C-alpha cells in the first residue's frame, strides 16, 4: 500500500517528467552551471565560494526534484552541510555548536526577559573569548562567520519571537540562521526573519529561480567590474597629484562598493534558487536622487532592519510629540545605532574597537543629510524625491543624482581615507588640471549625466507584472555564455597584449598594488586601513598575528642615526612562530670571523626582510642555501671557502642599505657586495623612511640627500602628509642617489657590486623598471630573481596569506635561481666556479 509520502513523491516525479518543467529545469541548471564555471574561471571571491557554488548546483537540482514538503528541511540540511564543507569539519562544528547553543537559549521554556538576559550574557562571554580575555580554544577563523550569522539575525529573530504567538519550525530556524550562502560571505545581507518565511515560494517557483539567476549574473558582473576598478582605478592618497586624480580617488574609493553589491546579489540570488523570494538589494544605487533615496536603494536589507528595530519603535514611542519631531528623533536614533552597530560588527569581525573620528563624522554627516531631506519630504503635500514625474530623460533627475552621488562619494572618500591629514592635503592639488586627465573626467561626467537622467526608479505599477520566463532565461544564458567565452585564454589571447593583461588580471583573485603596498607597509609600521569592512585587504589581514614586525620583538633595537635600527647581536627569540637567532655581529646567519680567512671568497648581502628571512630558520634563507651549496660543490675550485654574510634587516630601505654598507658591511672585507632592489615597493618605502628621518630630526650624513630635502622645503616641523607630498618629486632621485653612493663605495675598493632584483610573492613588478637600467649603467651586475617562483602557486611560497615573505620553498626557489645566475656569471665576480651537475635544491627536496 502506498504511503502519503510515496504519493507525494510520485506526483512530483510526474510533474518533473512534463516537457515544460523539464525544459525549465534544464534552462535554469544550464545558467547555474555557467555561473559556476565563471566563478572558477575568474576566481570569484575565494576557493571556499567555488566549493559552495558546486554545492549550490548539486543542491538545486536535487531540491527541485523533491516534493514541496521536503524542500525546506532539505535546504536546512544542505546549509548545515555547507557550513562543514566551506569551513572544514573542525571550524564548521564550532560554528554549528555555538550557534546551536544560542538557539537553545532563544527557546528555553522561560519568560522572554530571562531568555534575552541569558543571550546577552552569552554574547558578553563570547566577546571575552573573541578578545582572548578568557581562553577558549575557539579558532579565530570562525568569528566572522558566526558573527555574520547571528549578530543581526538574532536581534531580528528575538524581536519577532517576542511579537509572535508561535516559534518557527526547526527547519525554518536552521535555514534562517545557517542559510547556505552565508559561510562564503562574511558580509551578508541582514535578512529579515518574517520576510524570509513570508516570501518562501509565494510566487511561481520558476519565476523565483529565474530572478535568482538574473541576480547571480548581476552579482558576477558587479564583482568583475569591481576587479577592473580595484586594479586599474584605485589610487593611494599619496599618489594624488592633480585635479583629475582627486576625482579618480573620490570615485574609486566609493565604487569599490561594487564588491559588497556583487556579493549581496549573489547571496540573495542563491537563496532564490531555493525558493526564498527576498527583496531586491542595491537597486541602481549609482543614480540615487537624494539621501533618503540612497537610504532606500543601497543596502535595503539593513535599512529594513533599522526601520523594524529602531525607527518604527522610536517613532511610535515619540509620536505624541508631533510627527515631524518624532521622525527627526527616530532618525537620530537610527544613525546612532547604525554607527554603534558598525562598531560592534567591526569588533566581531576584527576583534578590536572602531572608535574613530572619521567613522563618527561620516555617520553625523550622512544622518544629518537624511534627516534634513526626510523632514522636507514629510511636509504635507510633499513630492517624493524618488519621483521626478517624467517618464523620459530629465535634466533635474540628472542633476539630483550628480549632486547626491558627488556629495556622498566625497564624504565616503573621507570615511575610508587612511589619514585625515592626507585627505585634507589632497585638495591642494585641485589647481592642477592636465589636458588628458581633464578630458577623461569631462567625458566620464557627460556619460554619467546622460545615464543619470533616465528613470532608474522602480518601474510603474503596470510594469510590475512578472515577466515571462523565456526572454530573461535567454538573456541571462547569453550573458553568462559571453563572459565564459571571453574568459577563455584561447579567445582573449587573440586580442591585443594590453587586453590580454587586463583579462588575466581580472581573472585572478589577488591584491592590487595599493593594497600590496599597505600590506607591505604593515611589515614596517602598524597600519589599520580605514573603515572598509568589505575591503579585500582586510580579509587578507584577518588572520594576522600581533607580533608581525621585527621592530616589536626583542631581536631589534632602534638607533638615532640614519641607519635607524639594527638586529641585536647574539639573541634568540621567537618571530613569526619560528625561532629567530642572530650571530655575534647582529646577522640572522651563522657565525663568521671578522677577519676573512685565506682562500675565502666573501660577499656581503644587504636588503630588507626577504634577505633577513623571517619565518624560516637560520640555515633556510636563500643566501644560506647558496652558501652551503657553493661550499659543498665548489670547495677547491678556486677558493677553499665561500661566505655570504647576511646583513638583511626587515623593513630596511635602500637609503638604509647605503648606511649599512658604509657602517658595517665593508668592514668585513668582502670580495663583492650584493644589494637588493624591489621595483614595486622600494620607491614608496624609501620615501617614507627619508620623510620619517627628517621629521624625527635624524642627522642625515649625506650632503646630496640633504640637498633633495632642502629643495623639497620639508623641515622637522612639516606635517607628515605634506612632507610626503613635497618629497615625492624627489623619490626617484633619492633612489638613484642610493645606487650611485653604493656603486662608488664599491668602486673605491675595487670590488664588484651586484643588484639582486626581487619581487614580493604574488606582486609582479614592471619588468622594464627604469631604475634597473640606471643601476646597469652605473656598472651594477644585475641579477634578476623575479622569475624564480614562476610556475608555482604563489600561495605555496609565502608564509601566510597576510605575509608575502618567502617560506622555505620560496627561499629554495630563490636559492636555485641565484646559484644558477652565479654559475652563469662565469668569472665576473671572481668566483671561478667549475661546471658541476645542476640539480636544483628544490628538486633535491622533492626527490
Amino acid at each position, binding site marked *: 500500500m502506498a504511503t502519503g509520502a510515496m504519493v507525494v513523491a510520485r506526483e512530483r516525479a510526474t510533474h518533473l517528467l512534463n516537457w515544460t518543467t523539464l525544459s525549465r529545469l534544464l534552462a535554469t541548471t544550464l545558467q547555474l552551471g555557467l555561473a559556476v564555471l565563471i566563478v572558477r574561471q575568474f576566481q570569484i571571491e575565494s576557493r571556499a565560494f567555488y566549493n559552495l557554488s558546486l554545492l549550490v548546483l548539486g543542491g538545486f537540482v536535487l531540491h527541485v526534484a523533491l516534493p514541496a514538503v521536503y524542500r525546506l528541511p532539505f535546504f536546512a540540511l544542505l546549509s548545515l552541510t555547507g557550513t562543514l564543507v566551506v569551513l572544514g569539519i573542525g571550524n564548521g562544528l564550532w560554528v554549528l555548536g555555538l550557534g546551536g547553543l544560542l538557539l537553545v537559549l532563544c527557546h528555553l521554556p522561560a519568560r522572554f526577559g530571562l531568555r534575552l538576559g541569558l543571550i546577552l550574557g552569552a554574547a558578553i562571554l563570547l566577546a571575552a573569548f573573541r578578545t582572548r580575555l578568557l581562553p577558549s580554544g575557539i579558532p579565530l577563523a570562525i568569528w566572522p562567520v558566526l558573527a555574520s550569522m547571528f549578530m543581526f539575525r538574532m536581534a531580528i529573530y528575538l524581536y519577532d519571537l517576542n511579537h509572535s504567538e508561535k516559534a518557527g519550525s526547526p527547519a525554518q530556524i536552521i535555514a534562517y540562521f545557517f542559510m547556505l550562502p552565508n559561510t562564503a560571505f562574511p558580509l551578508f545581507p541582514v535578512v529579515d526573519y518574517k520576510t524570509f518565511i513570508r516570501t518562501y515560494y509565494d510566487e511561481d517557483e520558476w519565476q523565483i529561480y529565474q530572478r535568482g539567476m538574473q541576480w547571480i549574473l548581476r552579482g558576477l558582473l558587479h564583482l568583475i567590474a569591481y576587479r577592473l576598478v580595484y586594479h586599474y582605478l584605485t589610487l593611494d592618497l599619496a599618489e594624488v597629484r592633480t585635479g583629475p586624480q582627486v576625482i579618480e580617488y573620490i570615485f574609486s574609493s566609493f565604487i569599490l562598493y561594487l564588491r559588497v553589491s556583487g556579493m549581496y546579489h549573489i547571496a540573495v540570488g542563491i537563496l532564490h534558487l531555493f525558493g526564498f523570494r527576498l527583496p531586491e538589494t542595491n537597486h541602481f544605487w549609482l543614480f540615487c536622487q537624494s539621501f533618503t533615496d540612497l537610504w*532606500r536603494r543601497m543596502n535595503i536589507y539593513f535599512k529594513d532592519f533599522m*526601520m523594524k528595530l529602531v525607527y518604527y519603535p522610536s517613532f511610535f514611542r515619540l509620536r505624541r510629540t508631533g510627527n515631524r519631531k518624532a521622525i527627526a528623533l527616530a532618525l537620530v536614533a537610527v544613525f546612532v545605532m547604525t554607527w554603534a552597530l558598525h562598531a560592534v560588527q567591526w569588533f566581531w569581525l576584527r576583534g578590536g574597537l572602531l572608535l574613530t573620528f572619521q567613522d563618527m563624522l561620516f555617520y553625523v554627516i550622512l544622518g544629518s543629510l537624511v534627516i534634513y531631506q526626510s523632514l522636507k519630504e514629510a511636509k504635507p503635500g510633499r513630492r517624493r524625491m*524618488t519621483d521626478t514625474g517624467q517618464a523620459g530623460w530629465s535634466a533635474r533627475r540628472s542633476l539630483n543624482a550628480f549632486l547626491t552621488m558627488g556629495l556622498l562619494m566625497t564624504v565616503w572618500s573621507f570615511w575610508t581615507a587612511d589619514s585625515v591629514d592626507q585627505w585634507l592635503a589632497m585638495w591642494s592639488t585641485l589647481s592642477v588640471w592636465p589636458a588628458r586627465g581633464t578630458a577623461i573626467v569631462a567625458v566620464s561626467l557627460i556619460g554619467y549625466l546622460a545615464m543619470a537622467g533616465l528613470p532608474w526608479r522602480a518601474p510603474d505599477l503596470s510594469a510590475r507584472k512578472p515577466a515571462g520566463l523565456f526572454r530573461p532565461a535567454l538573456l541571462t544564458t547569453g550573458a553568462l555564455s559571453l563572459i565564459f567565452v571571453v574568459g577563455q585564454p584561447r579567445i582573449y589571447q587573440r586580442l591585443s597584449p594590453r587586453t590580454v593583461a587586463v583579462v588575466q588580471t581580472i581573472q585572478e583573485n589577488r591584491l592590487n598594488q595599493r593594497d600590496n603596498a599597505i600590506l607591505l607597509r604593515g611589515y614596517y609600521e602598524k597600519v589599520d586601513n580605514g573603515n572598509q569592512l568589505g575591503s579585500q585587504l582586510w580579509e587578507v589581514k584577518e588572520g594576522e598575528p600581533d607580533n608581525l614586525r621585527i621592530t616589536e620583538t626583542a631581536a631589534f633595537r632602534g638607533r638615532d642615526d640614519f641607519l635607524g635600527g639594527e638586529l641585536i647581536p647574539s639573541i634568540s627569540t621567537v618571530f613569526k612562530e619560528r625561532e629567530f637567532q642572530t650571530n655575534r655581529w647582529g646577522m640572522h646567519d651563522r657565525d663568521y670571523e671578522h677577519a676573512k680567512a685565506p682562500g675565502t671568497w666573501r660577499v656581503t648581502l644587504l636588503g630588507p626582510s626577504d634577505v633577513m628571512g623571517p619565518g624560516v630558520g637560520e640555515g633556510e634563507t636563500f643566501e644560506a642555501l647558496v652558501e652551503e651549496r657553493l661550499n659543498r660543490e665548489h670547495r677547491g675550485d678556486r677558493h677553499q671557502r665561500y661566505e655570504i654574510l647576511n646583513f638583511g634587516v626587515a623593513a630596511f630601505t635602500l637609503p638604509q642599505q647605503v648606511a649599512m654598507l658604509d657602517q658595517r658591511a665593508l668592514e668585513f672585507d668582502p670580495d663583492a657586495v650584493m644589494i637588493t632592489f624591489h621595483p614595486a615597493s622600494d620607491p614608496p618605502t624609501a620615501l617614507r623612511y627619508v620623510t620619517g628621518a627628517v621629521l624625527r630630526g635624524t642627522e642625515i650624513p649625506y650632503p646630496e640627500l640633504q640637498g633633495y630635502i632642502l629643495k623639497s622645503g620639508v623641515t622637522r616641523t612639516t606635517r607628515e602628509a605634506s612632507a610626503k607630498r613635497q618629497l615625492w618629486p624627489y623619490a626617484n632621485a633619492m633612489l638613484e642617489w642610493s645606487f650611485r653612493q653604493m656603486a662608488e663605495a664599491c668602486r673605491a675598493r675595487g670590488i664588484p657590486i651586484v643588484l639582486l632584483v626581487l619581487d614580493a610573492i604574488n606582486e609582479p613588478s614592471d619588468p622594464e623598471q627604469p631604475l634597473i637600467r640606471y643601476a646597469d649603467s652605473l656598472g651594477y651586475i644585475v641579477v634578476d630573481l623575479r622569475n624564480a617562483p614562476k610556475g608555482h602557486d604563489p600561495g605555496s611560497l609565502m608564509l601566510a596569506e597576510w605575509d608575502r615573505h618567502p617560506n622555505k620553498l620560496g627561499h629554495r626557489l630563490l636559492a636555485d635561481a641565484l646559484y644558477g645566475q652565479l654559475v652563469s656569471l662565469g668569472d665576473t665576480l671572481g668566483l671561478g666556479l667549475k661546471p658541476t651537475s645542476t640539480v636544483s635544491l628544490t628538486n633535491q627536496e622533492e626527490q
Partner: protein
Amino acid sequence: MTNDEIMRTVKEYILKTFLPGEDPKALTESTQLITGGVLDSLATLELVSFIEQQYGIELQAHEVDAANLGTLPAIAALVQSKVVART
C-alpha cells in the same frame, strides 16, 4: 464594514496621496506596496496615521511591516482584526 470596503477606502487614499496620476486599475490586490516601492518609510507612517484616524484603532510598531501593510488585502485583514479586538 467588509474587507472590500476597507480595501476600497485605503486604495483611494494611496492613489490620491502616493500615486497621483496612476491608473487605478494598476493598483490591484496583489500589488506589493512596501517591497514594490509604493510606500517608503514616510509614506508608511502617513498610511498608518490615516488608518488609525479612519477606523479609530491604534497600531503597534511591530505591526508596521510588509506582512501587515504589504498588500490591500493584508491591510484590510489587519484593520478587521483590530476592529474586532476593540469591540
